[in-house]
């Protein structure tokens, strides 16, 4: 009996999404590059046709600028630079969507049907089941990056803008590698959420919450302090330090993505070194962390709680408390910011209302929701 059997079984479930991810990955890597180059073309044509209109930026010394000159840092990247060409945000957004979808098909939708019982009754242990799912999803992200990334490089290289990449091929490859690691990190997060989210929709909801939570909680704390004290400078400093900390980058793929300075990484060696060490290692650490926690929780998840929003019923109280506190802070911030300057009394009223509504929602979601098909 081979482990390949599990991969085959999981492939059957997720093959459509997997192939779609690879296809869309290639599109997301290359199409924006191509359209951006079309925009460059138009701008170049326009400037070359009417150089006098652009003298304000280019000065008199460039009467009939060449394409390379138009992209020179001397002219403050009037048209754009290499960073403008690379579809960093689009690819990561695609990986977030497909990472969560694939993870929810691999675990959540199994839990929605009798497939989960079938899988658990097979002669495999839960570690093997989880690893197989992780490998299938991860392979989709790797294949899409390995096809899309080099294709993107080729598109740039074979265009008239290939000079933008001169001396930067390694950096671009590094950025592709980082996007791939972020994709794997997000997928691992989604799979981890499936280890305790009792069905597909719950798993996706948990994934979105987990992705936003580390940054979100800092924002809520910042907003609350600001609403109560109006200390803008101190609060902003606290937020910035927290969001840029290595700890935050390790526990939040989103914070890690936001902290990558794609603008300067091709020109500033310090930024590049920081990217290769902190950003890459943070993404890698998150993958190890979320994979390990997911494996651990998948092993311990009580299968009889399939269909529930949260499967570890002993810990429902903690989820309940966190939900109430977060929504209370959000309610407080919203209400306090209705007036200018912010009003702490309104904050407290919003806090109570938000907390109460969250309490009602938590009661419904955590204790009553049960999509179990059969007890």
């Amino acid at each position, binding site marked *: *009996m*081979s482990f*390949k*059997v599990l991969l*085959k*079984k999981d492939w*059957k*479930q997720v093959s459509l999404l997997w192939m779609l991810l690879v296809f869309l990955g290639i599109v997301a890597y290359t199409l924006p590059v191509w359209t951006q180059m079309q925009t460059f073309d138009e701008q170049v044509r326009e400037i070359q046709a009417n150089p006098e209109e652009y003298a304000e930026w280019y000065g008199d010394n460039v009467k009939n600028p060449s394409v390379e000159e138009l992209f020179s840092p001397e002219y403050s990247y009037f048209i754009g630079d290499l960073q403008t060409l690379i579809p960093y945000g689009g690819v990561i957004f695609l990986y977030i969507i497909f990472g969560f979808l694939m993870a929810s098909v691999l675990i959540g939708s199994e839990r929605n*049907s*009798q*497939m989960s*019982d*079938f*899988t*658990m*009754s*097979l*002669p*495999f*242990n839960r570690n*093997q089941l989880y690893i197989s799912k992780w490998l299938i999803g991860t392979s989709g992200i790797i294949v899409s990056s390995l096809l899309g990334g080099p294709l993107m490089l080729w598109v740039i290289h074979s265009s008239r803008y290939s000079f933008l990449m001169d001396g930067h091929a390694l950096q671009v490859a590094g950025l592709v590698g980082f996007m791939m690691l972020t994709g794997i990190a997000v997928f691992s997060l989604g799979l981890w959420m499936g280890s305790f989210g009792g069905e597909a929709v719950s798993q996706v909801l948990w994934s979105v919450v987990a992705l936003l939570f580390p940054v979100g909680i800092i924002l809520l704390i910042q907003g609350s302090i600001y609403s109560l004290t109006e200390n803008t400078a101190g609060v902003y400093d606290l937020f910035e330090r927290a969001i840029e900390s290595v700890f935050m980058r390790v526990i939040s793929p989103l914070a890690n993505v936001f902290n990558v300075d794609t603008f300067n990484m091709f020109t500033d060696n310090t930024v590049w070194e920081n990217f290769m060490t902190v950003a890459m290692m943070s993404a890698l650490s998150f993958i190890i962390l979320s994979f390990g926690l997911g494996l651990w929780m998948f092993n311990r998840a*009580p*299968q*009889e709680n399939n269909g529930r929003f949260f499967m570890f*019923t002993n810990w429902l109280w903690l989820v309940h408390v966190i939900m109430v506190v977060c929504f209370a802070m959000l309610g407080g911030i919203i209400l306090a910011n209705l007036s200018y300057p912010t009003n702490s009394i309104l904050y407290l009223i919003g806090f109570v209302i938000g907390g109460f509504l969250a309490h009602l929602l938590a009661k419904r979601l955590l204790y009553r929701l049960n999509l179990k098909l*059969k*007890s």
Partner: protein
Amino acid sequence: MLTVQQLSKTIDRQRVLDDIDFTVGAGEIIALVGRNGAGKTTLLRTMVGIIRPDTGDVRYGPASIFEKSELKRDVIFVPDSADALKHYTVNEAAALYESIYPKFNRSTFRETLTRYNIDNKKIRQLSKGQKAMVTLSLAFAVQAKYYLLDEPTDGLDVVAKADVLKLMIAQVEARNCSIIVSSHQLHELERIADRIIMIEKGRVKAIMSLEEARETSVKLQVVFNNQVPVELLERKDIEIINVTGRVALFMAKERTKELDTFVDAHDPMLVEEIPMSLEDVFRVQLGGESSVF
């Protein structure tokens, strides 16, 4: 031998399985009976490691099924629907089983398909009876030693039910495998089961052969000279099935001398013992109502 040892499980603060203890020998067919919600499905799911018990163990030979997942090659769980494989074609499902279970016998599986005219379609496109035959045939082609079947004839027509039962008996005869079958179709279990395990509120109420079950309880039809005595109707240890004029048909949980004396004391014209079916035993032992069948 498959041994279930002091298995207990609490779900939502309810004791769903409570100290369940029994063994399954080779070549046995065991009927698992109990009212809805008694814990039959949970017991079967726990026996194959889908659910982990709070305490207790399920051992196949010397090893625990929860520690050595490879043991599940010989303990197959067949749920009450083929939902799990609905996206597979019949051939794909066979290929999947073949790759998981090394002893999978494709020719046995093919024979069953041919016998019951089942085409290579997506499983979700098959009729309910065909789905049941496919899932059971897949399971039996694995050539495992123990089968845990959860309501295998649920919702099937008379012919399909008979086919399923035939298939089960043929497997036990041919391979000396063991089957634990949970079902509400008591008249069917009666025909095939060697032993009955009665589950009530998560506990094993009784484990006995059908003969023992029949001997424990009694079903009497009594014709009284006068009216049916009110004292009989008020007795707590009997279940009145029918009273027509001077005739009373009732069952008693236990066959006691006190009951015989009581009946004799009321001057019966005729006392006839009616053979008990498994359904009767179920009703009198587990307090069933017609709605539960």
